[in-house]
């Protein structure tokens, strides 16, 4: 990161910190809220947060890299998360994921070339009796099939950006 530049500032992130009284123990919440607003965690945001909470930039990097939820890159417009944990494996999640990769022409963890759809793996959505489970733009879906996924993908592709 461009940590050498000291005057990076991100007003939104500063505000979020203030709302949490600049408490270091609220770091995960602050990162969540900042990422929600921006879609990802930018250098500017991280430097601003580190300064506001009075923690080192190394520490904040340690935290951001530890947790799977945090993104340093801008995400695609839409997110498809497929559960890849055991209970969903038992009802065909691996074949479903392979189908999605082929359909979107991306590997899991990547996004389509037009930046429309990101495909990622998640390990359990708590819907294990109605698998395969998926989360599409935050909406939980049970008993997913390749056919239903195709319909949903077509919708996302056609959705105005």
């Amino acid at each position, binding site marked *: 990161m461009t940590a050498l530049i000291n005057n990076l500032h991100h007003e939104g992130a500063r505000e979020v910190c203030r709302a949490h009284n600049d*408490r*270091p*123990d*609220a*770091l*995960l*919440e602050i*990162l*969540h809220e900042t990422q929600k607003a921006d879609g990802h965690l930018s250098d500017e945001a991280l430097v601003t947060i580190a300064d506001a*909470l009075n923690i080192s930039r190394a*520490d904040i990097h*340690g*935290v951001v890299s*530890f*947790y*799977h*939820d*945090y993104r340093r890159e801008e995400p695609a417009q839409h997110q498809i998360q497929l559960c890849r*944990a*055991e*209970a*969903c*494996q*038992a*009802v065909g999640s691996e074949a479903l994921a392979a189908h999605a990769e082929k359909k979107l022409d991306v590997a899991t963890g990547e996004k389509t070339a037009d930046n429309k759809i990101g495909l990622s793996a*998640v*390990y*359990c*959505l*708590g*819907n*294990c*009796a*109605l*698998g395969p*489970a998926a*989360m599409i733009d*935050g909406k*939980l*879906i*049970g*008993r997913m099939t390749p056919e239903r996924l195709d319909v949903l993908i077509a919708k996302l592709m056609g959705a105005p950006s």
Partner: protein
Amino acid sequence: MADAIKIFVPCDAAALSVGADEVADAIFQEAQSRNIEIDIVRNGSRGMLWLEPLVEVQTSKGRVAYGPVAPGDVAELFEAKFHEGGKHTLGYGLTEQIPYFAKQERLTFARCGVIDPLDLKAYEAHGGLKGLGNALKMNRADIVAQVTESGLRGRGGAGFPTGIKWKTAAEQNADQKYICCNADEGDSGTFADRMLMEGDPFCLIEGMVIAALAVGASEGYIYLRSEYPHAASTLRKAIALWEEAGLSGRNEDGSPRFNLHLRMGAGAYICGEESSMLESLEGKRGQVKVKPPIPAISGLFGKPTIVNNVLTLAAVTDILTKGAAHYKNFGMGRSRGTQAFQLAGDIARGGLVEKAFGVTLDELVNGFGGGTHTGKSIRTVQAGGPLGAYIPVSGFDVAMDYETLAQSGAMLGHGGIVVFNDSVDMARQARFAMEFCEIESCGKCTPCRIGATRGKETLDKIIAGEDRVDNLQILDDLCDLMTDASLCAMGGLTPMPVQSAVKHFPEDFWRAKGVS
């Protein structure tokens, strides 16, 4: 005018995932167009998940169930006068007489699916707040004694006696103590915490306030995994309603005497391990810490801290309501009370079964669960989450309690049971166990961090047919090393699914290359 007909449509995430909102909308529209006055209640789930969306209608005889209902069924249901309990092919009669439900022993989940989760009046009408009322009349030691006598053990997986933990925390002298609820529920095949938080959140909050009274804590946290946005929104509202009603007491400035916060995790399985969770609550990397000190002596911010699972704390509410003896009466051996078993994977009747300890795996999987959803035959179940053993069908007569399972080389964990049909490739499942450990290891100790990667590579070789005799030996040695030398159960138990797969399904590790 006659009272509006009460129709229940769950707002539980599992029900929503198969269209409960759309069904509620359709019922509302259809009732309007037919000029029928109804009152739609969004309840939690009854746990009969294969019937979701399960719609219930209040009748003079009790609640009548219909499921799984699709929006397209709604007009027909009205034609059949379902709003008066009329007959329809989706009908199951009285909900509480459905055998799956009737055969359960619902203590912790007694209200789940029955009431609107955010209706405090309904909560109280169904027995809520009695436990807290009783606790308020007792001294600290007596509350702890009730929990100890009930025989309650931690439902998060380790099964540690809750009373002992509370006693330790209660005995500490400190200016601040904390109650931390572990709602990280990361195990695949488990959803009981989620169902309770979405279906009866006050039950959890009541248990936390009782814990606070018992040990003298004024601050509490619920650490919830970020994969549970529905539970988060329900809990936020529930905490606000609870505090507005003054149920956590009030300080002179009007603030609640027990200050409860909701904190979200960020997608790390290891943060369910208690020391990792406490680090995460402090805003740090979720690295596991060496014990001692135990959290009850030095936990969050170095203060005495109770860490308990959602279901442990929810069980406390029931124990303080009905007394220790009532709870203790259920169960067998040193496993007292009930366990929320969760039937998942390829299962015909997946869902939540709350039963006294001692029910057999066969009764759960074949009796309650009705075998597979696909109609294929069952090959194995994985019990107790991703760190639990694979159990072959020949082992299904095992009684489900902590000790009996441990003796048979398996574990109960958080009560998840994942069913696999005969198309499963156990070498792939063993490989996944190692891969999961590789992805989720906190990286603190070598046996786990390096061992998982080496284990995955070794399984790749075995699957590819390379030097199988040698590589199976290497895998076994590696598993023993991980079991013995890992700092926590992540690395320490990953060998359990691996070695149980090799032991019970050796043929899968000897398949011809490319054949699965």
